[in-house]
C-alpha cells in the first residue's frame, strides 16, 4: 500500500500518545507486537496517531522498549533468537519493583501484549513460589482477614500443601 520507492525501508511510523500526553514514535512492526495496537492499525488503516488514554507514558515507554527488543531480535538474526530474548527478558524483569511491575502488567494487559503479560505474571509468580504464608503476606503487604480459628481450619484443610 505504501507507494514510496525512494525509501529503502518500508516501515511505517506510528505515533502513540500516552495518558499524560507523552508521545512515542515507533515503527509499525514494533507497535503491532501489541495486540490492541495491531487491531487499531488494521481497523483504522491510515491513522497514524493512536491515543492510549489508559496507559501512563512511563510504562508505555517500557512496554515499547520491550517490544522493540523483541522485534529487532526477531528480524536481525535467525538463530539464537530465543536465547537472546530470554536473556533480555530476564534482565528486563530482574530489577522491577512491585509498583512498576503491576503498572507494567496492567499496561501490557490493556495493550494485549500477550508475551509480555506472560513474562510479567511469571515474574509475580516467582515471588510467591516456595514461600510460607507469612512470607507471602509480607511480600505483598496483605493483611490476614480471617477470623480467629478460621485460618487454622483452612490450613488444616490444605495441610497437604504444607508437608
Amino acid at each position, binding site marked *: 500500500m505504501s507507494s514510496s520507492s525512494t525509501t529503502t525501508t518500508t516501515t511505517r511510523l506510528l505515533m502513540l500518545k500516552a495518558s499524560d500526553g507523552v508521545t512515542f514514535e515507533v515503527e509499525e512492526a514494533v507497535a503491532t507486537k501489541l495486540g490492541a495496537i495491531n487491531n487499531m492499525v488494521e481497523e483504522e488503516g491510515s491513522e497514524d496517531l493512536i491515543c492510549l488514554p489508559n496507559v501512563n507514558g512511563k510504562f508505555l515507554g517500557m512496554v515499547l522498549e520491550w517490544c522493540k527488543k523483541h522485534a529487532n531480535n526477531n528480524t536481525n538474526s535467525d538463530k539464537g533468537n530465543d536465547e537472546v530474548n530470554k536473556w533480555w527478558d530476564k534482565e528486563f524483569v530482574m530489577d522491577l519493583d512491585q509498583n512498576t511491575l503491576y503498572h507494567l*502488567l496492567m499496561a501490557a*494487559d490493556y495493550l494485549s501484549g500477550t508475551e509480555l*503479560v506472560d513474562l510479567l*505474571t511469571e515474574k509475580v509468580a516467582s515471588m510467591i513460589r516456595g*514461600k510460607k504464608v507469612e512470607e507471602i503476606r509480607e511480600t505483598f*503487604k*496483605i493483611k490476614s482477614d480471617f477470623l480467629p480459628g478460621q485460618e487454622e481450619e483452612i*490450613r488444616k484443610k490444605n495441610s497437604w*500443601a504444607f508437608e
Partner: protein
Amino acid sequence: MKLRVRPLDSKETLRIEVPNGASLHQLKEAIAQTIQSSSSSLRLSLNRNDELFASSPHEDSLQSLGIAAGDLIFYSIVPSQTLDSDSQPSVQMEPGIDLGRGHRETLESPVSQNQETLVSDLDTLANESGSTRDLVPGEGSNLEVGEGEEGFAAESMEIDDDDDGESMGFLGSKFPESCFVRRLRRVLNEGLGEDGRDHKLMVIGVHSVFLESGFVGFDSVSGTPVDGCRRLLDNWRPSMAFTLSFHYTLPEILSNEGSTASYVIETAALKFQIMGRFVNVFGSLTSGGSGTHRVCLDEHKFVPSISSVSSNGDSEREVYEFWKTVKDGLALPLLIDLCAKAGLPSPPCFMRLPSELQLKILEFLPGNDIARMGCVSKELQYLSCNGDLWKKKFEEEFGSKAGSHVPFHWKKKFATYWRSRRQREETATARLRRFPRYGLPLFNPIRRDLNPFELPHIGGDYDRLPGLVPPPSGRPGRLPLFRRTYSPNCNFGGSSG
C-alpha cells in the same frame, strides 16, 4: 442437571434431574411428578423466602434464574384456590418458618420487568433486617442480623453435608465468605431498611465493590465524605427518574486536602441507568478526562444471589461473578484514573490487580503454592479455589487421562493425588534411609550374602565402601543390627539373580 428439592416443613430431601436447559415450568412438572401433586400449586424458592417465578411459563430457563446444578430448592404446596396464579409472585411461603418477621397480609401486584413495580420479595428482606434491628439495637446490629439468620445457613449446610457437600467445591456453602461478601451483607442490611427493590439491590452491590476496592463515598454537595450508603441512597426516591449518581473519592485524596489550600477534591462519579432488567453503570471522573467505563448488570442473574447473601445464602458463584465484573470493569479503571488525576502514587498492589491477571499468576504456580496462597486472606482463598485452575493444575501434574466427569472436584482430587504421590516418595526415601546404600541406585542388584562376616569380599558394596566391612570396631554395635535387617531386604531389590 441434578437438583436437590426439599419441602419447607421437613428435612426430607429429594433428588431430581432435569435437562440442562430446562425451564422453571419443567422443573415444577418434574417435582410435581415426584411428589404426586399438581405443578401449579407448587411454590419454589432458593432461600425459603423469595419465590422463583418465570416471566412467562415456558421461557425462563433455570440458568437464567440463577439455578445451577446441585442447588437446593425449597418447595411448598399452596391450596388450590390459587391454582391459576402462576404469575403471582411471592405467595406467603410458609408462616411456620418465621424469624420474627411480620405476617404479610396482602399479595403484591404481579411483578413485571417494569421498573416502577415494587418487588415484594425485597419487602421480606427489608422487614427482616428491620425487625431484627429492633430486637438488637446499637452498633453491632448488622452483625447480629447475620447471626440471627444463621439458622437458615446452618440448616442448609447440614443438608450439604449429607449430600457429599465436598463435591460442590466452589459452590458449596461451606466456602468461607470473602471480604466482599461480608461487606455486601453489611451494606445490604444497612441499606435495605426502607422499601427495597431489585434496582436498589444492584446499586448497593456495586457500592460494596467500590468500598472494598478502597473508595469512600463522597457527598459532592457538602464536600464531605459519606459513611455508609444510606445517605447516598437518600438522594434517590424510588419514583425519581432512573439516573442516580454516586460520588467516590479516596481516603488519600481527602487527607491531602489540608496540605494545599485550593485543592479540588477529585471524585469519580457512578451513574446508574436502568433499562428494564438491566442496570447500566457508567463511571467517570467528575472533572472529565480519561473516558467513561461502563458495565451492564443483569438483574435476573444477580438479584437472587445477592439477596440471598443478606440471609447467608449460598449462591456465591454469581456473587463472585458480580464482584469480578464490577471490580475489573469499573472500580479498578476508575481507581487508576483517579490516582493519576490527583497525582497520587499508583494504587496497584497484588490485591488490586484485575482478578483475571491474579488467576493467571496463580496458573504459573505449582499446586501446593496455590493452596498456600489460599491461606493468606479470604479474597485469595476465594480466588485460589477456582475449579478451572485446579483442573489445569491436575492435568499438568498427573496427566489428563485421569479425567473426571465430576465438576467442582478438582482441588480435592489434586490434593488426594498429591498426598498419595508424596507418600510413595516418602516410603521410597524411608526405605533408602533405613537400608542405606550410599548413593547406589535403588535397584542395584543386591548380593545374597548370607554370611556377611566372611572376609575378604570382592566386589559389591564391600569393595566400594570398605568402611562398612568389619573390623566391627568401626561401628560397634550397629553393624550387626544393620546386617540383620539387611538380609530380608534382598527381596526389595527385585533382583532374582
